[in-house]
């Protein structure tokens, strides 16, 4: 029973800490703009409030409209179970779990898009189309990053892959993964999480019609995804496995905090890109990961 409880505890950490990140980003943005900004715990309040609310559902929508967010949330929760948390390790680890993680993220994407299409709204169709299209390039970048970590460590299991630093290609990998993080979590140069009702959105436009508990589940899932990518980025770049457990915990926390602040700074200093330039930026991300792969390959041979 103990391993089971331990696993639950670890999952609880992910679930509880995730909503902190968007709050931190907002705080950084407010700080740069010289405002006070919403409290760091704002998302927790929002989630609690939404969980109590009544649901309004489109007359066109099928039960899939409610099931979609649930499946997406479960998929994301499953994905975080596979990611090691520094010295504590992952809840579950086996040969090839890196691929399962990528495909769980894809499952979440499918159901978010599916729930968006339920409403028959042109806006939500637009958002879903963008989400699945940009994911094509993001997926290529992620797999290239995974390949480079595999080449580096000779393993296809996240726990081993993320233990050492990414070696000479670390800077390239960091740049590539950061680009993917911004794209997959719909942050600023790709999407603007603050706007509503504009034709330039991806994620926000897909959840326009959701309300109440399903919306809470979607928001929590998005926060979890952001935390997952931040942890992944930190662990891929820094040599977590070579540090003592307390130091590794500290480094992991600092790294996630650093990534969060980085996202906040990017959002404060950059404007959203025009849509026709998004593929260019994503391709750059793919190329970063690809060159990281080549560097890892060459480094491993020498």
């Amino acid at each position: 029973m103990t391993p089971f409880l331990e696993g639950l505890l670890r999952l609880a950490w992910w679930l509880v800490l995730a909503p902190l990140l968007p709050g931190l980003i907002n705080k950084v943005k407010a700080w740069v703009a010289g405002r006070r900004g919403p409290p760091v715990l704002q998302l927790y309040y929002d989630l609690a409030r939404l969980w109590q609310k009544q649901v309004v559902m489109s007359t066109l929508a099928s039960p899939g409209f409610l099931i979609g967010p649930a499946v997406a949330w479960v998929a994301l929760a499953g994905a975080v179970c596979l990611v090691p948390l520094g010295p504590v390790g992952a809840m579950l680890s086996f040969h090839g779990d890196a691929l399962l993680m990528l495909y769980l993220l894809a499952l979440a994407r499918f159901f978010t898009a599916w729930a968006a299409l339920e409403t028959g709204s042109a806006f939500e169709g637009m958002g879903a189309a963008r989400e699945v299209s940009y994911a094509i390039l993001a997926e290529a970048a992620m797999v290239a990053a995974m390949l480079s970590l595999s080449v580096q460590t000779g393993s296809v299991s996240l726990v081993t892959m993320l233990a050492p630093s990414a070696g000479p290609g670390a800077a390239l990998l960091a740049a590539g993964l950061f680009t993917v993080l911004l794209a997959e979590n719909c942050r600023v140069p790709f999407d603007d999480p603050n706007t509503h009702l504009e034709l330039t959105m991806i994620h926000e436009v897909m959840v326009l019609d959701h309300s109440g508990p399903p919306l809470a589940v979607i928001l929590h899932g998005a926060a979890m995804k952001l935390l997952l990518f931040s942890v992944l980025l930190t662990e891929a770049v820094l040599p977590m496995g070579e540090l003592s457990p307390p130091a590794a915990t500290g480094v992991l926390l600092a790294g996630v905090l650093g990534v969060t602040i980085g996202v906040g700074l990017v959002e404060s200093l950059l404007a959203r890109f025009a849509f026709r330039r998004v593929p260019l930026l994503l391709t750059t991300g793919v190329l970063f990961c690809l060159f990281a792969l080549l560097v890892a390959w060459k480094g491993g041979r020498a």
Partner: protein
Amino acid sequence: MNNYLNLLIGLAMGLNLIALGSSRLPSLIRAVSAQGIVLGLMPLLLEHHPDWRVLVVVVATVAGKGFVIPWLLRRAMRAATIERELNPLVGFVPSLLLGAGGTIAAVAFARLLPLLPEHAGSLLVPGALASVLTGFILLIGRVKAISQVCGYLILENGIYLFGLLLIRSTPLLVEAGVLLDLTVGVFVIGIIVDRIQRAFDSLDTRKLTVLRE
């Protein structure tokens, strides 16, 4: 020593890709000038005991490639009051992918060349090949005269990298010659740009085909 050199060349290769991906003229010129500065610093790393001649060359190259030529280009751009958005013949994403593929191919190809053992581990030759290729992609894929000049400049940077292989045997004569040619070329193009602008109200080199009769 070699590691720092490889880092600089890697930077230059990255700037190649930035040049390919930039959609506005000023950022293209910025990339080219940054590449010029990076390349200009290299002789310092290559020579173990830099004497005054190398210093002069470094200063001249950095000043020429990094500041003078970009300044001339910016002046030409301002004088001709052209639109700063590039409209490419080969799109940005395809040219970026082509450039990346070319870079990888250059690294793979350089291994096959019969190089001196001291150059085998360095990225000099791949960097040179990649820059030449990038120059060609820019020359083929861009329309405006100024972006063509940028293509020439990157092409010349590639030749310069090749020249660095010979830095021991020839005192940068080749490089000086090429640089001189190019400066003259930029002057001439600067003037021509002005004339084209007056005659055609545009800097689209495709319109020059009208002159063939």
